């Protein structure tokens, strides 16, 4: 006796293929999103104030450290307080529409809520000061900020990427006074500089020092 019509015979096949496709997509999903290939590169959130790094840091050439005051001392580079903006904008562009929120913040005492662009996992303890003081340039991790109208993430910021530099025989370093320079070109004797740097600072390859970043 035929309980089911003939076309149901394909069900087993469809079912098996379906299971296979599901498992395949699930594992590719996990494989991709769980891997270092999946990063936030290109993440460019819209900020509450349309601040242009290109204008300030690029065209006008304000040094990074004018605003990011913590970068040489703290783990955090520090997002500047409203006061820093108002230092100039009390006199310059005092009625700009773009600066409305900044003026409001200054008047009301309510801080501006910036959106974080470069995010590290909570279990990774990164320290700006030790990198900057060793001569790692801003551009090495953040890209050429001086040409960004809207700041976006340039590098993967994954552990794999950290280690690329830390395991490299030629670390990406430069003289300390050039760290904020976005257009620095290595001099002819750069190799000598690197080797003397390694001599002075020691081997910064972490090998198995997990706790230096994860604690």
């Amino acid at each position, binding site marked *: 006796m035929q309980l089911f019509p003939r076309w149901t015979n394909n069900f087993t096949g469809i079912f098996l293929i379906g299971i296979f496709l599901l498992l395949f997509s699930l594992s590719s999903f996990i494989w991709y999103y769980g891997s270092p290939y999946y990063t936030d590169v290109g993440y460019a959130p819209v900020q509450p104030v349309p601040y242009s790094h290109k204008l300030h840091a690029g065209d006008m050439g304000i040094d990074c450290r004018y605003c990011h005051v913590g970068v040489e001392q703290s783990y955090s580079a520090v997002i500047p307080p409203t006061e820093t903006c108002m230092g100039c904008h009390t006199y310059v562009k005092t009625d700009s529409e773009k600066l409305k929120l900044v003026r409001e913040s200054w008047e009301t005492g309510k801080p501006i809520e910036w959106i974080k662009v470069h995010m590290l996992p*909570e279990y990774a303890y990164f320290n700006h000061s030790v990198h900057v003081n060793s001569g790692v340039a801003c551009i090495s991790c953040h890209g050429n900020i001086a040409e960004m109208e809207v700041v976006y993430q340039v590098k993967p910021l994954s552990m794999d990427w950290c280690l690329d530099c830390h395991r490299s025989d030629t670390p990406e370093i430069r003289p300390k006074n050039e760290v904020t320079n976005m257009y620095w070109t290595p001099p002819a004797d750069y190799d000598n500089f690197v080797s003397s740097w390694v001599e002075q600072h*020691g081997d910064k390859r972490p090998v198995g020092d*997990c706790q*230096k970043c*994860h604690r």
Partner: protein
Amino acid sequence: MSQIKNKSKEFVDTNKIDQNTAQSHEFGYWKSLKDISSSDDYTNYLKQSEHHEDNGLSRRNFLSLVAASVALAGLEGCKKPVQKIIPYVEAEIATIPGIPKHYATTMPFKNNALGVIIENHDERPVKVEGNEKHPASMGKSNSFAQATTLDMYDPDRSRGVRLNGKKVDWSEYVKYAQSMNSSNGNRLAILSQESSSPTIQFMHNEFKKAYPDADWVVYEPINNENLYRGIEKAFGKKLQPLNRLESAQTILSIGSDFLGVEDNCVYHTRKFAQNRDLEDEKSTMNRLYVVESFMTPTGSSADHRLNVPNHQFASVLRELAGELKKLGLKIDAKPVKSSNHLWIKTVAEDLIKNKGESIIIGGSDLPADIHCLITGINNQLKAPIDYYPLDKAHVTSMKDFKVLCKKMAKGAIDNLIILGGNPVYDAPSDCNFEASLKKVKSAVHLSSFYDETSKHCQWSIAQAHFFETWGDAMTYDGYASIIQPQIRPLFDSKSALQVLTPIIFKEDRSSYDTVKKVWKDSIVNEANFERKWEKILHEGIHAKPLLSTQKVRIQNKISTAVLTKDQALDDNKFELIFAPSSSVYDGRYANNGWLQEIPKPITSLTWDNAAFVSMKVAKKLNIKNGQMIQILLGDKSVKVPAWIVPGQNQKTITLELGYGREFSGRIGSGVGFNMYPLRTSSNMGYAVNAEIKILNETYPLATTQEHYGLEEDKLAAPGFSDLSTKEVQSRIPDLVKQSTMEDYKKHPEFIKDVVEEHKPDKSRSWEDHSMYNPEPEYDYSKGHQWGMSIDLTSCTSCNACSIACQSENNIPIVGKQQVMNGREMHWIRIDNYFSGDPDNPEVSTQSVACVHCELAPCEQVCPVGATTHSTDGVNQMTYNRCLGTRYCANNCPYKVRKFNFYNYTKDLPEVVQMAMNPDVSMRFRGVMEKCTYCYQRVSEARIKAENENRDLVDGDVKVACAQSCPADAIKFGDINDPNSAVSKAKSRNRDYALLGQLGTSPRTTYLAKIRNQNPKLSSNNHQGAHH
């Protein structure tokens, strides 16, 4: 300085916390405490989007919204949530977010002061350290100081002002206080806690001027009144003694736990340990004799301990006086001979031998006549004690307190201002404080919690923690320092000074103004006051002492006749001792989870108190651990579980005070049993002739004594189950190696012999015996290599290290049930080992944390590489890699790895999260954790040095345990630097590795315990636990 704190916008707006509305994203740079963007944000977002649909939601719209939210929720899972950075509006002076700030302040404790430095992260005080410039702290601290951060962030604290249970504005109280007038001053009284604050003293004087008829009474349930009265009897005036233990070679304690919970313990321990720091066998060390009735940290540190019930201390002292007279002291005493004669005679000889460098310390709860005689003898011995005037401090007067209670009961008091304390709970039962308080028309209670006393007072005012207010305090020897606030009051709380000003000056004055005025007018007295003031705030101490030592002269002949006759103890009756708890003290720390969960010294009990009974009594009356007993004294009785404790006198039952609190605290309410009902004003310290009744109930008590045991572990291992207890006991000496001074002089290299003895094959080297590849992973001869040394000779098992570690490393508390399951999380555990006679054993304590083996067994078995070795020799735990197999814990021979069986911090209130250290990850369920050598501090120091372009020097890295240890028993540093403190400690011949025979090469090693036993006594006291 820290006054400007309230401008801070970047991290924590404390008011928001108070209103419990703080959103997690307000905490700009938070690490790990909570996902910055929680799913709440998403819900809020949805809510907001719903608001746009003002004109009602059609079914179609609703469905599409649901579909969209499901899709969004799915996407939420794979997209990183948006994080926000919230900077300051105004730049803070000298503030760079991310760099912790350190401010000096003072922790007032009764009439003493402990100078502390508070580490503030983003304007949140998170860690307490001792202030090296402060004479009572010397950079060290105790468990109460370490745990006080949690007190500050206690969500159960009282908030604002309440009148008859209803919240009212502070101005209402000010109006009420201003309405008091001096014409009926005799109906006004102030009941305050003990204090040494010069500003409180000033307020007292002003109060007396404004209300000449009013009373100011000081009461503290645990006080030194008897000591002061004894000194008054001897010298004619009440004085504060300061025991200069650094110059004492022979110390006799009669019932004093001066290394434990008694006042000034940090100072005492620090100075005592100075003379226990043995360089080698040629060094000298002090000798401590202890007469006591139950085992205390002091008794366990003793070189010789005599177990005598408290009520017989007078006869011990009488006999001692007789012996001392024979040896030439001018004391009126008769020779007596008891069964303890040899012991007492030997002590007397030792005291005389070191005359000028010997001292007798009496327990603060002993009767005044005993203190009088001790003071006299000390005077004759030329003991290194300095006496300071006491008239500037506020200390308890039981007489005044009783008079006040009587007045209150008669209805003669209309206005009672209770400044701190909790007298309804802790006043002696014969004072009937609760009933008397009900007769007071209008009582004001300033307290941290809405507690037993607040319930009966019309006004309840939230008391500011010392992190939140201005004030001052003074050490015994007159060094005054400022209490400098670290944070704005979290819960709209007020200080005692703020409560007093409207009463005295008829105006609302800030504590800052009050304190500054007193310091300007009467303490500093210099032209450039502002500069001086800044300096005092910065240093945390005023360099000029306000008191000077007093010349003392014995008033009457020193005679044993001052001693009252011994109290008689009937057969089958017991002596009761009311002892302050090492965890909750008199009950004030009852809501502090760190203190509640810390295993107490000796008993390792947590979360409860118990009646301590001796082994013999337990056997005789068939009492088991946890058996409920009823204790009857006079017409009062309490029920309490029994706990059998080694070293307990068989006539004595010890009851810990401070438990059984009835107030709404999520940690402390209903924990333990209240012993205060048995305590009367005539027997504050101990009482005789108590009866006990065994009840047919048991009560579960959580002890950690048998958890993570190194020796038990061997017993339980398969194949070893036939090992007898004796066999196991014989192994304890390998764990805590010890010797006597006498033997140590004879065999200075005794440790080496022991280690060699263990070698299975004497012809092969130790490396060949190792079960692991003896080649370490890295070359440890290069760079900084971290190591630790713990001196067992000076450790007193005070728990300061363990709580310091808990505070620094965000270690969760797990609760009583989990402790009973053996899941406590403390990274440092303190092992107690007993040897010899159970009634008077020798105690060896050993604090054990991860020893950071160079060849670590845990690392061999981790399947995911979550525990690995660093190039600087630290055994690291990478939490985000751990998946919780627990293989490492099973393979750890030291049993120091702790596993998060649950997500213990899940329900952590937001306020408590503020107490967490942002430099350390919070661990999740299923993750193993253990001591990291405070690697966050190592990193911080290393980065600082690198930024300054210099190398790390010894002392740059201070780990939390070593920094807090009042005995300075823990040394940490670079073992590659031959001049570092740790290298020097490790080069001593007492240095040994715990379970060194396993070939694990631990980085933490121990210095063997040396007991300075008197050869005349050692034969009958010492039972060969050494080699």
